[in-house]
């Protein structure tokens, strides 16, 4: 457990010292959402209708942007090799890095989401559910993304490749995340969606560190 905390603290240190990176991810999130009214038109009830979907897609893309750096810097300066050679099992080290990534990108997105919901004239009832759904969904995004980040280590054109690899795998989280918010706005219960999002999270927690560690191991061979 101490190893987990040591890696988590170090990664948070690295992230906060380079403060700008996380702010950039949130700024991308805001800009991406703000673009939609220019495309779709400022007409309020159209925006309200697509608000949840737009916020979720932008959150998905924003969290993916910072994923490429998850292992890349450590891979280039040799830390990843030493991490895999330390007494901490690599799966736990990967989990610590994913937790650090979620804390530095997932949480800021969740904080910014209600502000953007206002911009998109989303019905106020949906705000709490938007936050709860994002809280349940973004960790899965970080976990699945970590697998992609591990697989593209050492490849040419990593960033674009990462998007092509993991976006199809994000679709289930997107579908149930958006429908949770739309259900509440429509006056229904959203327990089913939240339960399924929770199930995705549990599945991702179990499988993704193992797959990502396998990806890292064959990358540093």
């Amino acid at each position, binding site marked *: 457990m101490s190893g987990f905390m040591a890696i988590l603290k170090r990664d948070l240190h690295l992230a906060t010292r380079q403060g700008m990176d996380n702010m950039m991810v949130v700024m991308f999130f805001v800009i991406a959402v703000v673009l939609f009214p220019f495309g779709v038109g400022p007409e309020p009830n159209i925006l309200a209708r697509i608000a949840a979907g737009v916020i979720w897609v932008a959150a998905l893309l924003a969290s993916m942007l910072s994923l490429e750096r998850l292992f890349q810097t450590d891979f280039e300066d040799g830390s990843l090799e030493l991490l895999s050679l330390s007494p901490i099992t690599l799966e736990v080290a990967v989990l610590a890095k994913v937790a650090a990534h979620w804390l530095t990108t997932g949480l800021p997105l969740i904080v910014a989401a209600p502000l953007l919901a206002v911009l998109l004239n989303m019905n106020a009832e949906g705000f709490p559910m938007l936050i709860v759904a994002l809280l349940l969904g973004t960790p899965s995004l970080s976990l699945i993304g970590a697998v992609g980040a591990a697989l593209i280590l050492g490849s040419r054109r990593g960033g674009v490749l990462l998007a*092509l690899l993991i976006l*199809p*795998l994000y679709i289930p989280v997107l579908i149930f995340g958006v429908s949770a918010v739309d259900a509440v706005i429509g006056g229904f219960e959203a327990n089913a969606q939240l339960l399924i999002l929770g199930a995705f999270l549990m599945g991702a927690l179990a499988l993704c560190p193992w797959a990502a560690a396998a990806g890292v191991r064959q*990358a540093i061979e």
Partner: protein
Amino acid sequence: MLHRFANPTRFLRIASVVQPWMAWATVLLGGAGLYLGLFNSPADYQQGNSVRIMYVHVPAAWMAMFCYSSMAIAAAVGLIWKHPLADVAAKATAPIGACFTFLALFTGSLWGKPMWGTWWVWDARLTSMLVLLFLYLGYIALVNAFDDPTRGTRASSILVLVGFINVPIIKFSVDWWNTLHQPASVIKMGGPSIDASMLWPLLLMAVAFTTYYLWVLLIRIRTEIIANKIRIARLKQVHG
């Protein structure tokens, strides 16, 4: 563990025997299937002749999923028992599977046009097929993204296993999402129940597609083995 060095002569011997059989089977069964499908089977009472597209669309869809499953099995064998030919088989299957998926989508939309009036409908099966196409393209992009081919095959083997676990989840989510946003009119593709005269061409075409897959697969695996030998010969030239 040592079969990593084994020269795949045994495989090459089997391949050279099996390949012509596959070729002939494809041509004969395909020809029979086409003849029955186009000339010798009745039109559907509802959809008229457009049902004949089914004889190409359905086998392509089956093959799209069959190829992805065989890639997942080959990747698992490659990762667990480190058998070099398993990875090569997965890498050789990907483009064939991608072609079948594209064909399933293309013929699906051509079949949908007369029925639904538009070229693309977000029907659950077509949408899942579209996501499957992205999984294939992701695999092909990753396998070629490395300078060292063994790195490429091993990384993409992990990807296809992760993807394979996700296929049912994606199918479930897309079905759920599809029933939520019910498009205006959805006629069940493929008609109520297929009577014998339509079943025969369908099965013939399905088997023909499978033998076609095995035929091209063997060609591509042999190409990969020879490309491997070329790389090793080049390395020997460099390192002496």
